[in-house]
């Protein structure tokens, strides 16, 4: 509404057609992870560790193997042993040994719920019964589940071969901290000393789960000739292929991964948990094997996002200029490294210009499931502390908190945290749009407070493959290797329709298996509409050139005498027209079939920025917080399909609200997760939420043919602080610890009363 208008006008880009896969999804026909059935398929079940930390002395599977109906049993002993081997696995590079141990424990278990054995049987009931017959002899070890304990001298050590990286000199003893990372510049201590006002404090958040509604599931069929097929829902079939092949020590080309529809991922389905196990069970049994997690298994054994403790000091001058920042954060990862400390440090201050700063990040491991990417991984926790301090300083200085952010905002031409020059970024435009929004000046009721929060995410480009071919009637087939997690078939069809100047419905989009198209990186990093979209546009442009060449040959004129107009080739001299159908019908007799492929490493991606405004009402009797109004503003580049851009903004905002108010892992004294279900792990439900108003600020990215920036991850970065700032202003108490559950708020209110 307050956004600057895009400079170009389009026929298809920016329209809101029905998505190509929509009908299948509203009628129940679409095939997701657990819906797929292979002929002769049997069922796998996992035996999981009841202890958060233990040494496995022995595993006796004899009784399980003897149970009628059991076709195969697998333990860690069935996995190939191998030296550490780095593979590309989604948004974080992983260590194949750790992936393997996470799929199946070998000598130690590192969290409650880690697999120790798996069974395949003719029914799930028999497989589960067989699991209960397996006898595991554990030597129970002391466990750690919080940052301070994991760092303490003499803490139980998860891995004896992990030494903290980033320390100088390098440590000679292993520890539970795999990484220390530092960035910054200038003289932050001097800048803080010179500041008019300083605020400081410790902020904390709990581990939270991505919370996709579809549990992990796959079917694997590994034949005696070494060739295998896997059907699964994931954020990247190629990543499933490479990591599964890596864990099993086999050739990538021997595994063909078919992508099924995916029921949510948010980063959490870039990971391999079940596939190698199902493969081994299939190889042993000679049958296709399905494995599927229960909800409890999803919580207890698939990737949450790390918890955090952030110590921060920020200083500002009287005019609101942020003079210096020093922050040190610790991210509480799980059983294996991968807590996204780097992107946390890179995002924390990236939306402001603060030359004098130091950011130190530590990764800490503990005896909970290994943490993995969750939407803008690492950014929300650190940003929560930064955006809370700005709010506090604005209160002290008597400044409008949006004005204070505008004063310090990063602009095009400023230097990024990486030292590169920032391109066409739109943070200032977002802040101005937020300030101009009626929400910002609307009156508040009793017990209500208004908070604002900003944030950024770097987005990504990277490798994608797309093919475009014409059917014999000239209709268009677009094929990519990027799973459609939230409407990307529609955006691919829109971009192809725009480029080819044909009707949206003339284009059909397929997501191909790993043997049917070239490599594409995962759907993640907010990269698909940018990178895969760019590949689709390039392939469409190749098709146009090809069709013009064919038409020129048919008319016997030079190529420059032809032009592409309204989805057809037009001869400039004669105004003759050859449609796609005309040329396609003759293709078999002329130059041959019409098809193009674009395999690219998409560069020129730009970071996205968001500003969220939140009104909360705090019930003084119960401490319950209600979100009464919410507005999300975001620099989206160009919105290809605005419904799905708004949907990303709304969904990300609500996940962030859940993170702020309700969600968090709770462990009992024995180290078991206490809330592994949706009743006790309380995600926002429909009646908790107001409408989420959205403002799309369109500042196109010059490096994409239609200006795409990537929109999926930014919207989870601002809400933690936006909600906490609103509650802080409603209660007059600074909220530094999430989630802000009613009991915590109530206790603070009682303390305030005195």
């Amino acid at each position, binding site marked *: 509404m307050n956004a600057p208008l895009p400079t170009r006008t389009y026929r298809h880009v920016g329209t*809101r057609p*029905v*998505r190509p*896969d*929509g*009908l299948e*999804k*509203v*009628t*129940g*026909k*679409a*095939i*997701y992870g*657990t*819906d797929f*059935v292979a002929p002769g398929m049997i069922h796998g079940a996992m035996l999981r560790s009841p202890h958060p930390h233990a040494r496995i002395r022995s595993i006796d599977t004899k009784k399980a193997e003897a149970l009628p109906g059991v076709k195969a049993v697998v333990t860690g002993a069935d996995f190939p042993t191998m030296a550490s081997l780095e593979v590309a696995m989604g948004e974080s590079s992983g260590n194949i040994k750790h992936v393997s141990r996470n799929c199946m424990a070998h000598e130690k278990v590192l969290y409650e719920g880690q697999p120790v054995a798996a069974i395949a049987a003719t029914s799930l*009931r028999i497989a589960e019964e067989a699991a209960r017959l397996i006898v595991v002899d554990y030597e129970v070890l002391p466990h750690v589940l919080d940052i301070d304990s994991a760092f303490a001298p003499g803490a139980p050590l998860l891995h004896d071969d992990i030494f903290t990286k980033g320390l100088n000199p390098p440590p000679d003893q292993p520890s539970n901290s795999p990484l220390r990372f530092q960035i910054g510049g200038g003289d932050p201590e001097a800048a803080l000393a010179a500041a008019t006002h300083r605020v400081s404090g410790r902020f904390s958040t709990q581990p939270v789960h*991505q*919370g*996709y*509604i*579809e*549990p992990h599931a796959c079917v694997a069929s590994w034949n005696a000739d070494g060739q295998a097929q896997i059907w699964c829902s994931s954020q990247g079939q190629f990543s499933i292929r490479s990591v599964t092949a890596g864990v099993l020590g086999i050739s990538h080309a021997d595994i063909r991964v078919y992508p099924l*529809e*995916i*029921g*949510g*991922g*948010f980063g959490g389905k870039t990971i391999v948990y079940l596939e190698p196990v199902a493969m081994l069970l299939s190889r042993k049994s000679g049958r296709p094997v399905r494995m599927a997690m*229960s*909800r409890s298994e999803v919580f207890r054994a698939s990737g949450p996002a790390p918890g955090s403790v952030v110590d921060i000091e920020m200083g500002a001058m009287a005019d609101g200029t942020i003079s210096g920042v020093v922050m040190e954060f610790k991210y509480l990862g799980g059983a294996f490294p991968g807590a996204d400390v780097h992107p946390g440090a890179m995002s924390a201050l990236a939306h402001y210009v603060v030359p004098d700063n130091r950011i130190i990040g530590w990764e800490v491991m503990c005896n909970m499931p290994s943490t993995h990417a969750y939407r803008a991984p690492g950014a929300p926790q650190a940003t929560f502390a930064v955006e809370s301090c700005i709010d506090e300083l604005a209160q002290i200085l008597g400044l409008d908190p949006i004005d204070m952010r505008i004063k310090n905002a990063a602009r095009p031409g400023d230097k990024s945290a990486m030292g590169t020059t920032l391109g066409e970024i739109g943070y200032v435009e977002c802040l101005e749009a937020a300030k101009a929004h009626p929400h910002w000046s609307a009156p508040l009721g009793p017990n209500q407070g208004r908070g604002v929060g900003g944030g950024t995410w770097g987005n990504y480009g990277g490798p994608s493959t797309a093919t475009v071919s014409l059917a014999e009637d000239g209709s268009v087939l677009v094929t990519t290797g990027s799973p459609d*997690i*939230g*409407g990307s078939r529609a955006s691919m069809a829109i971009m192809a329709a725009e480029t080819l100047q044909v009707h949206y419905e003339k284009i059909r989009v397929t997501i191909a298996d790993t043997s049917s198209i070239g490599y594409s990186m995962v759907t993640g990093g907010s990269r698909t509409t940018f990178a895969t979209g760019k590949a689709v546009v390039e392939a469409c442009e190749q098709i146009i050139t090809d069709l013009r060449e064919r038409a020129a040959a048919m008319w016997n004129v030079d190529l420059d005498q032809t032009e592409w107009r309204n989805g057809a080739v037009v001869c400039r001299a004669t105004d003759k027209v050859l449609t796609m159908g005309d040329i396609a019908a003759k293709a078999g007799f002329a130059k041959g079939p019409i098809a193009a492929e674009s395999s690219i490493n998409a560069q020129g991606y730009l970071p996205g920025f968001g500003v969220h405004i939140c009104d909360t009402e705090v019930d003084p009797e119960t401490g319950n917080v209600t979100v009464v109004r919410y507005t999300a503003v975001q620099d989206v580049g160009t919105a290809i*399909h605005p*419904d*799905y851009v*708004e*949907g*990303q903004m*709304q*969904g*990300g*905002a*609500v*996940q962030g609200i859940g993170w702020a108010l309700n969600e968090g892992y709770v462990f009992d004294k024995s180290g078991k997760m206490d809330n592994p*279900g*949706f*009743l006790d792990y309380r*995600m*926002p*439900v*429909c*009646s*908790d*939420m107001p*409408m*989420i108003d959205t403002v799309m600020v369109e500042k196109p990215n010059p490096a994409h043919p239609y200006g795409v920036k990537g929109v999926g991850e930014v919207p989870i970065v601002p809400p933690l602080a936006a909600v906490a700032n609103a509650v802080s202003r409603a209660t007059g108490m600074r909220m530094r610890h999430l989630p802000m559950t009613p009991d915590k708020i109530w206790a603070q209110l009682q303390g305030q009363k005195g």
Partner: protein
Amino acid sequence: MSKMFVTATVNGDSAEFLCDPGATLLDVLRDTMGLTGTKEGCGSGDCGACTVMLDGEMVCSCLVLAAETEGRQVSTIEAVAEGSDLHPVQRQFLEHGALQCGFCTPGFIVASKALLDHNPNPSESEVRYWLAGNLCRCTGYDKIVRAVLDAAAEMRQERIPA
């Protein structure tokens, strides 16, 4: 363990099946009948992805034993459209982009249709509380609520005699 023989009506057709005494209606719908439009998100009645109608009442099929459906009427997402004609709720979900991954969508559509069958003119608040038993992690619910309100308006229009 001997199987139980059950006769029920599923989506208007007579259905006979054998099931374990412990099997849920969800298990039988998905695994025995191949009606995989009904999804399992939790198995504990907390997410609503498995919502179906049982004798006209909205239930989580993961909390109903298959044997309990003897002689009763079950209706699933597969029967919401009449042949190839989408129900207004389905159409409005598409028009609003009220689904992203689409996994929770069948449960939401069955629940929304049940609401509109009871209450042709719900307020936003009534929609939100009716759907509070259905989890969606993608959309933040905004477009879902708008789709249901618009479907209600569309259905009220249809009821006005010409």
